[in-house]
């Protein structure tokens, strides 16, 4: 028996392609939404008022302390437990009906999850803002909001890049569990191909390679972004280049 049959891959290419699109859609939209929501919540997270920071920290604690798979199953299968939800489904309520769509549930779970991690990443970067910068902003007569908008956020959003790149890569790989709720993403496509041809190596190695390439592309993009926006934080390299 042959261990690696390329024909299995070539005949299933369209399926892998659709899976790739699904994976990219899921991670892309989840990351985008998660990020947009995370910025204001991160500001709330660093607030000194416990009534403001408390709920946000409870939210991040829950989502960072439990596996994403369980969150996904909780949303997708758990929603049907409630009588009012079932009643809304019967009545054809447009919002609650979304909870029957695996795609929406996966987006919601991934988005909430990445949002929680992103909040902590941004909040960490904000806490590390050099004290002098904030004092300078105050001395210039900026209000707290102005200082946040002009000084703290731009610089924290740059400094968070390295840790955020990790989160993006983890999200890409975490999206592999979407196949647990009947979605056919890259991993789901591989599972289908495996069960049709009984060809585990072809299916999973090929998909693994696609993930690897995606990861490399992401790493490259973030390297580029860091070179563009974090150039000021790499003084040693610049000094060395001058010497040479």
């Amino acid at each position, binding site marked *: *028996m042959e*261990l690696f049959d390329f024909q299995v891959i070539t005949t299933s290419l369209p399926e892998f392609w659709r899976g790739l699109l699904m994976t990219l859609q899921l991670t892309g939209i989840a990351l985008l939404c998660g990020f947009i929501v995370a910025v204001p919540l991160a500001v709330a997270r660093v607030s000194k008022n416990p009534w403001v920071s408390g709920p946000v920290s409870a939210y991040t*604690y*829950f989502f960072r*302390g*439990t*596996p*994403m*798979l*369980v*969150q996904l*199953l*909780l949303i997708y*299968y*758990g*929603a*049907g*437990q*409630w009588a009012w939800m079932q009643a809304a489904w019967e009545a054809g309520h447009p919002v609650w009906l979304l909870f029957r769509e695996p795609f929406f549930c996966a987006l919601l779970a991934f988005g909430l999850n990445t949002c929680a991690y992103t909040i902590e990443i941004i909040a960490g970067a904000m806490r590390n803002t050099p004290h002098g910068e904030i004092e300078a902003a105050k001395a210039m007569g900026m209000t707290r909001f102005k200082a946040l908008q002009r000084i703290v956020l731009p610089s924290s959003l740059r400094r968070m890049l390295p840790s955020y790149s990790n989160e993006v*890569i983890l999200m*890409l*790989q*975490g*999206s*592999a*569990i979407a*196949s*647990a709720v009947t979605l056919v993403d890259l*991993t789901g496509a*591989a*599972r289908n191909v*495996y069960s049709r041809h009984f060809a*585990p*190596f072809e299916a*999973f*190695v090929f*998909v*693994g390679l696609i*993930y*690897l390439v995606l*990861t*490399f592309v992401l790493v490259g993009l973030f390297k580029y972004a860091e070179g563009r926006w974090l150039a000021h934080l790499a003084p040693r390299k610049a000094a060395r280049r001058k010497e040479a």
Partner: protein
Amino acid sequence: MGAAFKLSDFLPLRLWTMLYTTLVRGVPDLVMMLLVFYGGQLLLNEVIDYFEWEFIEINPFVAGVLTIGFIFGAYFTETFRGAFLAVSAGQLEAGRAYGMSAWQVFWRIMFPQMLRYALPGIGNNWLVLLKSTAIVSLIGLSDMTSLADQAGRSTHQPFTFYLAVCALYLAMTAVSGYVLNRLTARYNVGVREANV
């Protein structure tokens, strides 16, 4: 072990570990687990056919443990590599100057100091590992998640059961956080914390 390889002067060893760490970090754990579970079985069958042994079945537990071990080996490799590099060379030289053997230098000087630098990373890896164990339910292992699935289906209360699983995971992360704090405090004895 991996860390030692990656820092080795011997190039092929370094290349292998580089390949290992990039592979593991670039491929989702689920894909790897499916590959080990299904592919490993096929490979094993071939081997068994070849030697005409009796049929052996890979059980999902073995596949899960092997894959998670394989994956987190790579993560820990990176953590330990960074930590070994953080111990200052002067400490090791002083150890040699006292006439300690390489082994003694490692255990008495390198290891305790390395652990201090490695602890935050170990903590993070441990928490990630704890949560990634949930995906073994997808290859048919009855962990908490799949038990909750079964219980939820038979009682029609999936939300309650999944929420209970969440609570258990939260409890585990909380306990690990406490233990890690204790360990950090222990290994940081004699180190002044930077005053920011």
